[in-house]
Structure formats: structure tokens, C-alpha cells
């Protein structure tokens, strides 16, 4: 039985509304806590490089987007609990390899370690990999069934009472795409997965059914499950992220984790021309259900 991010608790195929309260009760266990860190903390650049490497591996192997998402969730939670002092390429690599392997195992997808390592030019022996796996598992307390925003999509979507299954599906699809891209936005780190899910659905509603947006907003914000103030703040950040993402990619916002810089000194010397040399690459990927989604990516030349 694979781990389904949209339905993380249940072993049954159908969705169980009973389990919703369990999701809300447990969601905080699966959040990274980067908030207390200084922006110069080496873990931010470790994260940035890891996310970049994951997107590279993903574009080579075309595995499902949830694996990459889950791996980044593991890395975030690992880094927010571990005092890593150095940003060394090998640390990033082994972290990425092991997190991807754990995510693939949870998703029940065959992604062998040798496959992941093949193109990366740096091979680790089995013992090092196993040690890293143990370290990550200990740090995450074996809580690999991450409760992510995807887990709440179905629940909040049901609030809209659209009565049109096609529209419901499109909203969910668009909200999923937004959630995938939120993983790059540091300003959204402080929000709980449920709040991210609700905001993503509202952003999707604003784009697809603008006339019904206010009734959707009312339905969600009046529910006992969301704090209105938090929701409005998250929604504002997400809107801003999407607007910026449209004309350039969201990772280039000043406070973003994926800031375009290798070191801070290099960053200071960036000119517009340097920015032009940054290739914006769109990665299309096929998911299980054959629907495509895109994550905007930056690649350094």
C-alpha cells in the first residue's frame, strides 16, 4: 500500500471524513521550523542547493511530483532540527539521494539508489547511505507520513459546493499546481499545511471562478478549521507569489529561499545582465493521473 499525500492516513481507497480531525491534530508535527533561523544560516543555502538538485534529478527521471515534494518536506524537517554547519556539495548530495529514496519507498515507487546516483557523479557506499538514512529517520522520528497541504485539498474543496465535478476537479488540479510551487516560497513556511491548502484553493477559485470567489472565501473562513487572520495573510503572500511568478519566477523574490546567488558576495554584484543569463526552465512532468503540471525552475549557466 503506497502513501498517498492526498489521503495520508487512511489505508482505504476512499476518502474518510472521520480522519479530518486527526489531520488537523497532527499537522504541526510535519512542519519545518525555519523561522528562528537567521537568514545567513548555512541551512538556507543547503536547502536551496538540495531543492535545485532534486529538480534536476526529477527532470532526468520523470518520477511523480509528489516524490520530489515529499523529499523536500523531509529535507526541510531534517534541516530545521539538525545543526549542520557546513554547506558542502557532498552533504547536499547524500541528503538529496536519501530523501528521494525514502520518499519513493513511501510512494511505493521503484527508484533504486544506483539510479538516483548514476548521473550525479558522486557515489556513496551502501554504509554511508544507510547511516544517512538512519540519521534522517531518527531526526524525523520515523514520521514519514507527512501531512502536507495536499491532504486538505479534498476537505476544503468540499466546502465550495460547486455541484460540478469537472469544475471541482479543475480547482483541485490548479490548487495542486500552486501547492507544488509554494514549496519554494520561504514566506509561506510559517503557515500550517491546512492554511496553505485553503489559500491555494482560494487562489485557484479566484482564477477559475472569480464570481464565486467571495462565497468560497466565506465558506472556508467561517469554518471552525481555519483561522481567518492566518488565512488572509497566507492568501496575500500566495497572490503576491503568483503575480511575481507570472512575469518572472517566484524564486527571485528578495526573501526567497531560492535566491539567485551562490554566496552573498556574488549576489551583491548581480546586474540586470547577470539576471538575463539565468535560464528560466519549465519542467513538465507526468504524474500518475496523466495530468501535467509545471514548476518553474531556475538554472544557473
Amino acid at each position: 500500500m503506497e502513501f498517498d499525500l492526498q489521503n495520508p492516513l487512511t489505508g482505504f481507497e476512499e476518502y474518510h471524513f472521520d480522519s479530518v480531525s486527526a489531520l488537523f491534530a497532527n499537522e504541526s508535527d510535519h512542519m519545518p521550523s525555519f523561522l528562528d533561523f537567521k537568514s545567513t544560516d548555512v541551512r538556507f543555502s543547503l536547502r536551496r542547493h538540495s531543492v535545485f538538485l532534486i529538480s534536476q534529478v526529477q527532470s532526468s527521471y520523470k518520477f511523480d511530483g509528489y516524490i520530489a515534494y515529499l523529499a523536500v518536506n523531509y529535507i526541510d524537517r531534517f534541516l530545521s532540527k539538525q545543526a549542520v554547519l557546513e554547506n558542502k556539495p557532498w552533504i547536499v548530495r547524500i541528503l538529496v539521494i536519501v530523501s528521494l529514496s525514502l520518499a519513493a519507498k513511501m510512494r511505493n515507487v521503484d527508484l533504486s539508489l544506483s539510479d538516483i546516483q548514476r548521473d550525479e557523479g558522486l557515489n556513496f557506499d551502501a554504509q554511508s547511505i544507510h547511516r544517512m538514512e538512519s540519521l534522517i529517520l531518527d531526526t524525523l522520528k520515523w514520521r514519514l507520513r507527512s501531512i502536507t497541504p495536499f491532504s486538505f485539498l479534498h476537505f476544503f474543496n468540499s466546502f465550495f459546493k460547486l455541484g460540478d465535478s469537472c469544475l471541482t476537479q479543475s480547482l483541485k488540479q490548479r490548487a495542486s499546481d500552486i501547492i507544488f510551487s509554494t514549496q519554494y516560497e520561504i514566506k509561506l513556511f510559517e503557515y500550517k499545511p491546512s492554511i496553505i491548502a485553503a489559500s491555494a484553493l482560494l487562489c485557484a477559485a479566484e482564477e477559475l471562478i472569480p464570481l464565486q470567489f467571495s462565497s468560497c472565501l466565506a465558506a472556508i473562513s467561517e469554518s471552525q478549521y481555519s483561522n481567518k487572520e492566518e488565512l488572509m495573510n497566507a492568501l496575500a503572500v500566495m497572490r503576491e507569489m503568483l503575480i511575481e511568478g507570472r512575469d518572472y519566477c517566484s524564486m527571485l523574490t528578495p526573501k526567497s529561499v531560492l535566491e539567485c546567488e551562490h554566496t552573498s558576495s556574488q549576489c551583491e554584484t548581480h546586474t540586470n545582465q547577470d539576471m538575463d543569463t539565468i535560464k528560466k526552465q519549465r519542467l513538465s512532468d507526468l504524474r500518475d493521473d496523466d495530468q501535467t503540471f509545471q514548476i518553474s525552475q531556475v538554472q544557473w549557466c
Partner: protein
Amino acid sequence: MEKYEKLEKVGEGTYGKVYKAKDKATGQLVALKKTRLEMDEEGIPPTALREISLLQMLSHSLYIVRLLCVEHIDKNGKPILYLVFEYLDTDLKKFIDSHRKGPNARALPTALIQSFLYQLCKGVAHCHSHGVLHRDLKPQNLLVDKEKGILKIADLGLGRAFTVPMKSYTHEIVTLWYRAPEVLLGSTHYSTAVDMWSVGCIFAEMVRRQALFPGDSEFQQLLHIFRLLGTPTDKQWPGVSSLRDWHVYPQWEPQNLASAVPALGPDGVDLLTKMLKFDPADRISAKAALEHPYFDSLDKSQF
């Protein structure tokens, strides 16, 4: 594992040895469940990852034995996993045994049976709301704190990661007494109802102080059930005669269930009847059981 001081071996569970131990730093008593891992070059097996993470998630309930942490060690190149659980002093089997024989032989207090059953239904409802079936509920798997009157479900979830063996670690035959008829008849579509059958058997056993259906083979187990509840027909359980392991059985008429549990009042018998329905679709759910009139006299505010 230096963190823990092993005090004694308390059992050999289905999946390996269980030790009572003490956390050296806090003095807390814990149960260490030792499991060998079959590792390959890909590291920890996916099934173990998925099951343990499920246990972690379920362990939030008061009625589930809490998984405190997981210790992963390498002993002479062989990976060993210790699941560290909270420690409870006894289990329901030993508890019932102590009331059946020896100097303290007497019936279990009615209020205690009611409270234990309520806690059991709470725990089962928690598992089911998370989409998890226990599949092996039995008195040995229900841990009890005698002083506080608390009952918690143990050995959860391991059923799939470590595939339930026919013979346990100690070569003791895995008990069939609590197994639902649809499982015994080879149905491939299990549902939450399999656990409710077990709950019914456990309920009756608390009242009787002996097992309701003590079969020693799958066939004998079915005969025990049919002798009391009558041989099921397609009318009362649609599709029963097309189940994989269905045979022709002697035709028994249903007996009066109350006669099997003479100490139980009418509300209790009604609840038990609903737990022991042949057709899994008719069997009461854990959530509905919690609302049954049998529990009306229970002070639910304490739970």
C-alpha cells in the same frame, strides 16, 4: 540502546522478543520490542517505513499503546530495530486468567467490563477513522493498567509490514479464536467489521472468563461459531456460500446468545448480538457501538 536498562524479558511476541526496560535518564518504564530487519542495498524496507510511520500517527490516541521512539541499531552487521513503547503492567489475557483461577478467582466487576469495552471501542474507532485495520485483536494484544483501570490496544499495524505468520516467534500457533467468519471463509475483501467481530469475542470473554469460540483449526473455529449462532444462510448473509473456503456444514439452528453470557444484562446482550452479526455489512461499527445504550450507565466524561 545504552539509554535503556533491560529489566526482564516479558514476552515473546509474534514478531520477536519483548523486554521490560527502564529509560536510564528519566526512570520511565518502557517495553522494548525487538524486530530484525531484512535490509538490502536499498536500506530499510519500504513496508517497515510505511507501517512504523503509521504507528507513529496512530499513537496519538489514549487508547493505543504509545510508540515513544524507534531505535535502529546495527549488531554485528545485522540491523535491529527496537520499537520503544510505553509500559503497562499486564494484558487482558493475564488479567482475565487471574480472575478465573487462583486465590482471587471471581467475576470481573460489571462496571470494569463496561469501561474496558468502551475504551476498546474508542481505540478501534480511532484506528478505523485513520483507515487502519488491526486484524489481530485479542486479549493478549490489549494492555491493561490495573491500578488506573486503563486499557490500550497494542501490536497495531504490524500485521502488514511483517506479514502475520501462521506460527509465532515461539512456534505457538497464532490464535484463531477472535477471527471473523469472513476471514475464516477466505473472503478477500476485509473491512473494519473484522475487528468488530474480535471485539465481540473479547467482550463475551470478559463476561465468561473463558473464550467464546476456542477453535483449534480454521474448520473447528467455524463449527464453534455456527454451533452457537446457527449455520449462516445466503439469506442472512448474501454471498456466503460463494466465499472461497465455504463447504457444506452441518445445519445448526441459532442458540440463545444470552445463555452463553448469563451474567450479561439485556443491553449487553443486544450489543454483543450486533457485534457478532454474520454479514460484515450488518455488524455494528466501533463508532456506533460507543453510542449503544449498554454504555448509558457509564460516566463517559472520564474518557
